[in-house]
């Protein structure tokens, strides 16, 4: 019966698949049958029936690995011995790892602020104009592209070829620079600016997200409030400051924190464009490197825990803001 657990041939796989489907059908039938049976069930049973599976799955899939990761962060490379806080002191003293933390900080500060600001300005500018849908679709499109895809696109944009006779620039940006009579630049390997060029890619992707949410929030401002504000003497910038911003504030917080959390976890862009070289690595990428390249499980777990700890204040702030909004609505 070994083939049941390790099917090799096509026929065996099909049999296993059929058995799996039958098992699924049997379980579903059992559940449906059970649902119809009892006429009176206690609240506890109902609570367990509904919340139980979710709690079990969260425990297995989230809580258990989280605890395991925290434990591993206090162990050595292969988890064979306790090393106390060594991994943490290394994370905060090793110059390379400090650079990683600094880069992550730059990402988390710049990406949410810039993409939200750009998204908000864009949403306000295109609101109720002709061609609004097209304009919004254009900015939203990058959201539909995978991070890796976007990274490859931008890698071409930043592509560098030395400025020699017979060598053609394939990078869009360098070609423009050459046309303007400048020297082509090595965008992705010149520190510290290369980090900012990577950040541009993330902003390019996230602006669409910010714009969509904020545009919806702007449209939700009641017309009569806008009119009342016009009668009160607001227009242009003052309308933006006194009415638009306070009205979309909840959406702003959601957008800022969502992008911040996404940025903390950024990995694909760095991995695809520089592989974390030239001083561009961030926590998530370094975690990957330590775990799978350097086989340093302890340090990788430590980085994961640091990432987790960094996300907590953002989540707390987010919840605090949502409570504040309750007062208004």
């Amino acid at each position: 019966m070994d083939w049941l657990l390790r099917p090799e041939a096509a026929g065996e796989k099909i049999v296993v698949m059929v058995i799996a489907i039958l098992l699924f059908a049997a379980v579903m039938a059992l559940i449906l049958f059970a649902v119809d049976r009892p006429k009176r069930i206690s609240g506890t049973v109902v609570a367990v029936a509904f919340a139980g599976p979710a709690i079990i799955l969260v425990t297995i899939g989230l809580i258990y690995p989280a605890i395991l990761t925290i434990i591993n962060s206090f162990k050595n490379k292969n988890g064979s011995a306790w090393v106390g806080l060594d991994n943490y002191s290394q994370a905060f003293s090793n110059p390379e790892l400090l650079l990683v933390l600094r880069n992550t900080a730059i990402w988390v500060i710049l990406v949410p602020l810039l993409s939200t600001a750009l998204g908000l300005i864009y949403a306000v500018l295109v609101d109720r104009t002709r061609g609004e849908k097209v304009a919004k679709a254009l900015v939203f499109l990058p959201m539909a592209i995978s991070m890796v895809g976007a990274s490859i696109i931008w890698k071409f944009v930043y592509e560098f070829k030395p400025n020699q006779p017979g060598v053609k620039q394939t990078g869009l940006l360098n070609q423009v620079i050459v046309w303007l009579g400048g020297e082509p630049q090595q965008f992705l390997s010149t520190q510290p600016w290369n980090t900012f060029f990577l950040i541009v890619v993330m902003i390019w992707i996230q602006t669409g997200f910010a714009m969509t949410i904020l545009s919806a929030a702007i449209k939700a401002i009641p017309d009569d409030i806008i009119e009342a504000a016009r009668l009160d003497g607001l227009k242009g910038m003052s309308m933006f400051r006194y009415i638009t911003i306070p009205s979309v504030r909840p959406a702003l917080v959601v957008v800022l924190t969502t992008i911040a959390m996404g940025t903390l976890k950024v990995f694909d862009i760095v991995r695809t464009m520089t592989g974390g070289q030239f001083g561009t690595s961030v926590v998530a990428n370094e975690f990957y490197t330590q775990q799978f390249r350097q086989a340093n499980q302890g340090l990788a777990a430590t980085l994961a825990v640091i990432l987790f700890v960094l996300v907590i204040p953002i989540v707390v702030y987010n919840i605090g803001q949502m409570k504040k909004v309750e007062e208004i609505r």
Partner: protein
Amino acid sequence: MATVTYDNATRIYPGSTRPSVDQLNLEIADGEFLVLVGPSGCGKSTSLRMLAGLEDVNSGRILIGDRDVTDVQPKDRDIAMVFQNYALYPHMSVADNMGFALKIAGKSKSEIRERVEEAAKILDLTQYLDRKPKALSGGQRQRVAMGRAIVRQPQVFLMDEPLSNLDAKLRVQTRTQIASLQRRLGVTTVYVTHDQTEALTMGDRIAVLKDGLLQQVGTPREMYDTPQNVFVAGFIGSPAMNIGEFNIQDGHAQLGRAIIPLSRETLAAVTDADNGKIQVGFRPESLDLSSEGSGGAFPVEVNLVEELGSDAFVYGQLAAGTEGAAHISSGAGESQIIVRVDPRQVPEKGSHVWVSIRAGEQHNFSASTGERLPN
């Protein structure tokens, strides 16, 4: 304080061929409370919004005092508006809401505080000044919206159905409060409503609009006593006026068994275009119970009696055997007649009562144009 003048003001919405407000001519005196009233879609709100500067004026002019404000920014028109849904800023406290226009106008903090507190006192809002609008009841929000207008000390108050979100009891209360407040402040006020009772009770004068056209302007008494056309006659008054299309025969208006005398002046005003017909209107309260055979009396079959304590209204139709029952109607619906009767002597359901129109309380309108004919 200032007068308001609409001078052939017209508004055509983009993409529409028919004007929403068609050459409106209206003069509102200094300190007057003018009510714009009409069914939905009649252009009353649009007229108000044109005055506020929220709608463009496609042709004609609007003046506040002697100043042509047709192309002036809303904030520079020296007006304040109360919106139907109040349009309070949800993120500001009551005090900030009320003082916001002054803040934008660059007034000093102490002056804003003073004026807000003064208005809050008038409106009984002092204890709520630090609350957010969400923490207020509907009536309180309405008062904040009023306060926001008062604080600005404008030349003209504009009110767009400010009572329609209140419950019936509060609406009646607030109605008198607004009216007395306006008298006290003496600020010219233009008030929009679809409710003719509000119009009659609050306005110094009432302007009735229909399909963008001004039908009639006058004091509540004039509107009630001498409506200029069939539409105004049917719109003003509650319950609505009974209006029927009668045949003119031998100098009488005749419909089935109802024969109503017409004066010589009325008959002289009837034209050929009327085709021998005339519209006769009479209010439920203009009918007296009389007896069969007395002059001008006609029978009404009682379908339903509504007792209101102070009054009782008979809902019925021109009695059976009269082919013309379908030609007479009232606010209660087609082929209905409403009669006000003594609440202590109400007729039985299904019985017949004979009624006649009290002298001088009959309204005659041209069958072809709907215009009022002399009595």
